[in-house]
């Protein structure tokens, strides 16, 4: 049972479900969490109190509970709660939580009764919630600052900005919001490349998310690649098959056409839901998206010279955005001089992280960039080279799925009376992409 629930670093203080607990409990947690540097593990104990928290949207979502309750349930619940708040408020930030506190109180009142979880289905909840969401920013389809992050497959001519789906779901009813549905294929890569350039590990975690803003959507059909095979043994179709190791589905998905035609059928609830999750281990269909060719040496004056060549091995039509390479450097490095191959890149020495961070806003497939860093490190010894550790890359690959999973079609039935828009978007993120030196 959840005794007390609150979310921190905002004015929204907490709801007490059981017993007489007060604001002092919130303060106890606050002090405990802020007293130590770095992230705290999700379970924090203060005398007899067990706090379980998650971090989402820059906020702590905290529940106090008893020692014998299930951490899986509470962590999942807190994640779901954060997702619901995101759906209903149109975003997750301290500001949106503050502006919508009445709505969130109302939501919590329906979701939890006496510390017991009642329902978290947005279909059920929408009947009970009365307050209107206050959107923290005006919504505009032509918010050009974000254009280009996602590609639209069904409407080649138009591109939906990544912020398009960040709005309250209830607006679709009262405020004349458009009738839209977004289907996102989101993949996270975690890759380790050895110092000899050999791929040591390559895992992909993927999911298909449906975000629905349609007041009356009875059923959608999502067609995946017909040659998609699941598991090691199964092979379908001819040529290069798209393969995943494991997949699991939302319980509302009907799979009667999945085995034969790879079609998912479901009746989406309003808001966001993960329809399918899949994993691929150690067997990427294509080459890993980046290769790094580092040269590291000490020059005569005791300076550390780092020469990095970064090659993007994506197909020429694709490109990577927000690429950031973080190169650990020896402790005590004081100054950095840099030569970068184009002016839009930037690099800085972050002393507290002991790393040189090289930022590349955009890197097209098939191209190569280089950077030369010279670092002054007092007392540089040959052993210090050990500290120039694995390079971490973070990036986003819009319009790209690492597994090759594609959505062939997206059909709504019955055919919507009002004009409705369907968006299919792909994005691959780096979960952890490290290259050993």
């Amino acid at each position: 049972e959840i005794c007390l629930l609150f979310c921190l670093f905002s004015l929204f203080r907490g709801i007490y479900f059981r017993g007489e607990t007060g604001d002092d409990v919130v303060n106890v947690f606050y002090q405990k969490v802020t007293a130590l540097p770095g992230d705290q593990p999700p379970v924090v104990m203060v005398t007899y109190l067990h706090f379980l928290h998650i971090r989402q949207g820059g906020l702590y979502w905290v529940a106090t509970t008893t020692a014998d309750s299930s951490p899986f349930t509470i962590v999942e619940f807190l994640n779901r709660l954060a997702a619901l708040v995101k759906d209903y408020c149109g975003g997750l930030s301290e500001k949106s939580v503050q502006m919508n506190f009445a709505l969130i109180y109302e939501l919590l009142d329906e979701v939890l009764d006496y510390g017991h979880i009642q329902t978290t289905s947005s279909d059920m909840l929408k009947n009970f919630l009365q307050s209107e969401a206050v959107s923290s920013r005006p919504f505009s389809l032509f918010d050009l600052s974000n254009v280009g992050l996602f590609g639209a497959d069904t409407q080649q001519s138009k591109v939906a900005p990544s912020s398009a789906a960040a709005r309250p779901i209830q607006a679709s009813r009262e405020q004349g919001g458009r009738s839209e549905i977004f289907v996102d294929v989101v993949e996270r890569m975690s890759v380790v490349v050895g110092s000899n350039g050999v791929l040591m590990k390559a895992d992909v975690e993927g999911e298909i998310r449906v975000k629905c803003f349609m007041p009356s959507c009875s059923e959608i059909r999502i067609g995946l690649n017909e040659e998609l095979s699941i598991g090691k043994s199964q092979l379908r179709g001819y040529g290069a098959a798209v393969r995943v190791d494991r997949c699991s589905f939302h319980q509302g998905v009907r799979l009667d056409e999945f085995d034969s035609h790879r079609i998912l059928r479901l009746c989406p609830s309003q808001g966001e839901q993960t329809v399918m999750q899949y994993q691929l281990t150690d067997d990427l269909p294509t080459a890993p998206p980046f290769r790094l060719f580092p040269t590291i040496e000490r020059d005569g004056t005791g300076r550390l010279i780092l020469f990095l060549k970064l090659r993007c091995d994506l197909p020429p039509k694709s490109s990577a955005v927000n690429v950031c390479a973080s190169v650990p450097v020896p402790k005590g490095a004081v100054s950095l001089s840099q030569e970068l191959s184009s002016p839009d890149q930037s690099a800085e020495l972050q002393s507290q992280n002991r790393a040189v961070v090289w930022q590349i806003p955009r890197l097209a497939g098939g191209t190569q960039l280089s950077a030369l860093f010279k670092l002054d490190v007092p007392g540089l010894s040959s052993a210090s080279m050990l500290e120039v550790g694995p390079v971490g890359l973070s990036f986003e690959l819009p319009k790209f799925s690492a597994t090759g999973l594609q959505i062939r079609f997206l059909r709504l039935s019955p055919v919507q009376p009002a004009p409705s828009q369907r968006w299919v978007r792909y994005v691959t993120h780096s979960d952890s992409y490290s290259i050993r030196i």
Partner: protein
Amino acid sequence: MPYLGGEETVRELKRALSNPNVQAEPLRYRNTVLRVVRAMSQGVNVSGLFSEMVKACATVDVVQKKLVYMFLCSYASLNPELSLLVINTLRKDCQDPNPMVRSLALRNMSNLRLPSLVEYVEQPLTAGLRDRAACVRRVAVLGWAKLYNLQPGSDIDAAVVNELYSLLRDPDPVVMVNCLRALDEILKEEGGVVINKPITHHLLNRMKECDVWGQCEVLRVLQRYRPQSDDELFDILSLLDASLVSPHPPVMAATLSLFLSLCADLPAVSLAALERVSGPLLAACGSGSREMRFTALCHIQLLMRSVPGLMGPHFKRFFCGYAEPAYIKQRKMQIMVELVNDENVSMLLDELKGYCTDVNTDTAQAAIQAIGHIGRSYSDRCLEILTGLLGLKQDHITSAVVQTLRDLVWVCPQCSDTVCSALEGCEETLQDSQGRQALLWLLGVYGDGVSSAPYTLEAFIDGVKSEVSLGVKMELLTATMRLFLTRPAETQDMLGRLLHYCIEEETDMCVRDLGLLYYHLLKCGIEETRNVLQGRRSDPSLGVLIGRPAQPISQWACSFNTLEPLKKGGTVTQTASRGSPEHEASKPKTAVELPETLDCSTISPIPLFWKCWRLKLSVV
């Protein structure tokens, strides 16, 4: 928004709430109420507005009603008399044609938590149990639990309990699950809701109607059931197989808990369940939510206590992501250490080597310790990495390496030559007391192999006056005594100085007593001293340790799916970095042995001596 002082805000809100013009306009009225609740959520004490808010409760605006109820429930216990006024409105709302209003009123009526109002609440709750709308029944069922917790020890109304049992057959799954929860609380003293065969089968059949949370609740309650025959048991197990591999981690974990409790007497079946659940657990380790990852990792550690090879083929899944928080990295390293075998050892060591220079010192030290652990079975490769790290000359790394070497050499005495040659020069980099203690221990025990050992000790002895750490002083005394036994000529003079300092000048009783003990011991003769100080060496048969023996599942089954595995340190006991290994490994044995090796005249300081060690261990 300007933040007004609390009292000013309350006065202003009071004026607005009692203004008839505001009350006449529904939207303005609602907004004023909203401001009251906002102030409440900011921590302003708005209890003074109670009577105005009671009036604001009588409205047709549902949003306003909700806000007012929220306020009333927070402050009702401070105003028990005024709360009586609300009851009438609430009871009227319980008759409202709109089921949403009825459930709202009923929920808040039972949330008021005032024993004086119990008599008014019972009747609407009874009616609520038979309401046509499911949402009202859900609230009514839990309302009875709240009512009973309000008056602990009061008689349990059998009629209500029977009604709740019969509502287990309610068509709405949430009502059914709430009945389980309510009965569990009402019948707490009798061991909770009774789960017999018909109820079990009913619940199992209806599980698929429930959502994730309901399923978890049902699975939890079913742990109390004991099947009457093996046939029934296996029927239940096969019915639950789909939820065992559920993509929802809460359901998967609850099902495994149930499996383990049902199959407590069938270890083979339990092991098969662990194998089956490893896939979904691994998937949860790659979840987007890092808290979920952490939870799954901690539970994988539990499972590995019984099936050490469970995750063997998947060792790469436990490589750390560079952006992961330190608490996840440490768990992953603990798992990686357990998965080492001949094929993957070089890959794992390569990976761990990369973490040793992590910016986060906790991560770096944990990585070094992990390499030390692997060194128990693959000592050459690990020693090479560890001694290489000493070249970095960074205090936190050197400290962790020296502590790791100390622990390693205790388990694998055959490494001592390599360790000895690596120790030269470490004392210049070491800063913290843990690392220096480890160095002193090594110099004392293996001083004959380190040519510079007397000089290093001498530097310590010269600085002993300014030494603040009790542990370092104690270790220094013992190390100097030991070195004296192997290299008397070089050490005699400095030992004399140290003993003199400890006995004459030192203010700390523990150090002083230890000095006196050694002084008396030396008076008994060199052989006695040797017996006491060098009696304990590690047992060479400890030699190569690979993994831990598999534990029976019953040792941890009760803590599965609780917060226990997530707590600090988790399931792996941290033997490293806490004092000298001999006192960790063989404390009880030596405590019995020691008195026999000494004659009566020196016995007096001994109890104190051990007290010091106990003290030290508890302080550290």
